[in-house]
Every structure is written in structure tokens, then in C-alpha cells.
């Protein structure tokens, strides 16, 4: 079940081959949903679900897809799964689905999906593809959660909606940094994570 290769498929994307930090996939949605922690977690879970199951489906039919129309086939599979997730969210967590607005729909065009489908699911058996999907989804979610944590903490002084910065700090003149809530700071937060990550993993550094 978990041979060495499968373990790699599952655990490599968490850090060494992280989809956001190293493969630079799925930036588009990473940044827009990270103002607060809760939507970020919901987004992460949605991506894990869509990624794992689309990987399995594409992997199951990989030998029957003609390569000329594979992009359209992949998009249709992904779009169908995303619609399921979207309807599910609207039914069970309407508030968050409002906050995420178009970004759930944009999971379809999340490059992680196309990237993993092309690079892994098309050439591997269903079980490793499933693990690869879970692994990459988790790697994506970790980044989302870290970015959202810092943005919510510094931007609104809360974590998951609870006040964590005590009142006496505000009494002594501490202010929430309004800039952190604005979209551009998401990019700079990710850049800081990239910086930290590559300082630890020197083999990932680029020459220019």
C-alpha cells in the first residue's frame, strides 16, 4: 500500500516539492482567499478533494483518452468535481461560500490540478495518483493556512475569529496593520515563506 515510491508521492509535495513554493502552481487562488483563516481552510479542503478524485478519475481512464483532446477531457472532469464541491458548500456552509465567491469556481483553473494531471495522473496507476493528489493538496493547504494565519493575526488581531491580541496591547498604542488585509501583502507574505524555505533547502535556490 505504501511502498517507497508511494510515500514519496504523498510526502514530497509537503516541503521539498511543494506545489506553491517550488512548482509555482496555484498561486492565483492562494492569494485571494487568505485574508482570514476559515475560508483558507475550506478552500484547502476543497482543493484536496477535487485534486485527489480528479487524479483518480483521470488515472483510471488514462489509456482511453486521445492525447489531442486530453485538455478538454481533464477540464470537464475537474469542472464536474468542482461543481459538486460548490453545490455542497452552498448547501452546508453558505457564509464561507459567499466569502470565497468566484474562487471556488476558479479551482478549475487552478494550475495545480492541470499540472498534476499532466505530470502524474496521466502516467501512473490510480492508487499512487490518489496519494499524489492528497499530498499536493496538503502542500497547498499548508501554505494557505500559514499565509492566512499571519495575515489574520497581524491584520485583524484574530485567529479563526477569536481575539488573540490582548486588549492592553491596544491600550498601549498597538494598532492592527491594515496593510496586511490588502491583497498585495499576500504576495509579500508568500515571498517571505519562499525566502525561509529556500534558505533551509539550498538546493532549490535559483542561479538568477
Amino acid at each position, binding site marked *: 500500500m505504501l511502498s517507497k515510491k508511494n510515500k514519496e508521492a504523498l510526502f514530497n509535495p509537503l516541503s521539498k516539492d511543494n506545489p506553491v513554493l517550488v512548482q509555482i502552481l496555484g*498561486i*492565483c487562488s492562494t492569494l485571494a482567499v487568505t485574508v482570514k483563516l476559515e475560508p483558507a481552510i475550506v478552500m484547502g479542503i476543497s482543493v484536496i478533494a477535487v485534486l485527489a478524485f480528479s487524479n483518480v478519475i483521470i488515472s483510471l481512464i488514462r489509456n482511453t483518452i486521445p492525447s489531442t483532446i486530453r*485538455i478538454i477531457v481533464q*477540464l470537464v472532469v475537474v469542472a464536474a468535481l468542482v461543481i459538486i464541491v460548490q453545490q455542497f458548500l452552498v448547501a452546508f456552509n453558505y457564509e464561507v461560500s459567499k466569502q470565497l465567491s468566484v474562487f471556488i469556481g476558479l479551482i*478549475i483553473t487552478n494550475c495545480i490540478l492541470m499540472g498534476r494531471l499532466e505530470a502524474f495522473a496521466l502516467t501512473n496507476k490510480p492508487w499512487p495518483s490518489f496519494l499524489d493528489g492528497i499530498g499536493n493538496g496538503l502542500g497547498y493547504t499548508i501554505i494557505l493556512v500559514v499565509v492566512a494565519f499571519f495575515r489574520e493575526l497581524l491584520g485583524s488581531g484574530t485567529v479563526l475569529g477569536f481575539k488573540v491580541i490582548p486588549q492592553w496591547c491596544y491600550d498601549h498604542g498597538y494598532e492592527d496593520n491594515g496593510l496586511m488585509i490588502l491583497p498585495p501583502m499576500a*504576495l509579500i507574505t508568500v515571498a517571505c515563506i519562499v525566502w525561509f524555505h529556500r534558505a533551509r533547502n539550498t538546493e532549490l535556490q535559483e542561479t538568477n
Partner: protein
Amino acid sequence: MEELNLFVKSIFIDNMIFAYFLGMCSFIAVSKNVSTAFGLGLAVTFMLVVTMPINFLLDRYVLQPGALTWISEDLKDVDLSFLGLIMFIAVIASGTQLVEMAVEKFSPSLYASLGIFLPLIAVNCAILGGALFMQQKDFPSAMTATVYGLGSGIGWLLAIVGIAAIREKIAYSNIPAPLRGVGITFIITGLMGIAFMSFLGIKLG
């Protein structure tokens, strides 16, 4: 006049990259030199202009609740809006195929330099995002939707050419090793985003 406002607004204030982060993947990956960036920007703009009115008409006459009444009164309870994503992505994917063939025919050098990113326009978030925003904003006519598409496309083109120009310049700078490449590009994009936010205060019309 309203169209002109929308046009300016979609270029600067609602800029696809700096306000919504749509199309970031190709934005980061294809911005190493200005000419390739310009080519991709044109392709994206073209795709937005072409797909926006088609998607608008689809939305208006097929997908919205009660949109099918033009066929027969009996269909007024039909709500196909849950099919929106699939319809939009199908239009975009087939459009991309067309653009790819056209570029390959007329500009082989651009085709070679865009490489994998040409088919990836199909999954460029900016284009599907444009369609979804169009649905959300509820434009009055296909003309307005096209203007919105053109504006968003030009905004995206402007952003990617800008970042490519900056990256060409900083290629010779002494950047801390872990930040080279991706890291510094993120930071510059963030700073450009902050600069673009100064447009936020502008009220048009």
C-alpha cells in the same frame, strides 16, 4: 460613456493581476523577457475579448434561471446556472485551441517561445475569472461585457509587460540567494500591487 468608465476601471482599478491575482501562474513563469511577455499578454487579451461576449450570450440565453423562455414559455422554471462552469470552460478551451492554431500558423517564433503556456491559456484564471466576474456584475449588454473583457485583458498585458521589464533589469542585481527568481518576483508584484492601489480612490462618472 459608461463603457469608457468601465474600460478604464477594468484596466486600472479592477486590474486582474494586482487586484484579484488572476493568471498568476503564467504571470510569474513567462515574465522573464519583455517580448515573450508581450506576446502572451496579447494572446490573453484576445482570448478575453473573444470569449467574453460568447459567454455573456450563453449566460443570458441558456444558463440563467428562466433564460430559456425565448424557446418556449414552458421552460421558464428551468435553471441551468449550475452548468455555468462547464459551459464557460468549454468555450474557453475550444477558443484556446483556435488561438493556438492561428499563432502557430502566423508567428512560429512566438509559438516556440510561448511553448507550454499557450495551451495553458485555457487554464489561465484571468479568462475564466473574467467570465465569472461578468456573471457576477450582471452587465446590461454583450457590448459592455466585451468592453470589460478588453479592459481586463489590457490590464493584464500592462502588468506582465511591466514585471518583465523590471525582471530584465534586476537580472544583474545582487539579490540574496534564497530570494532569486521566484521570491523577488513575488515581492515586486506585491509592491506594484500597492502602487496600483492608489487608483482605488478614483471615482469615475
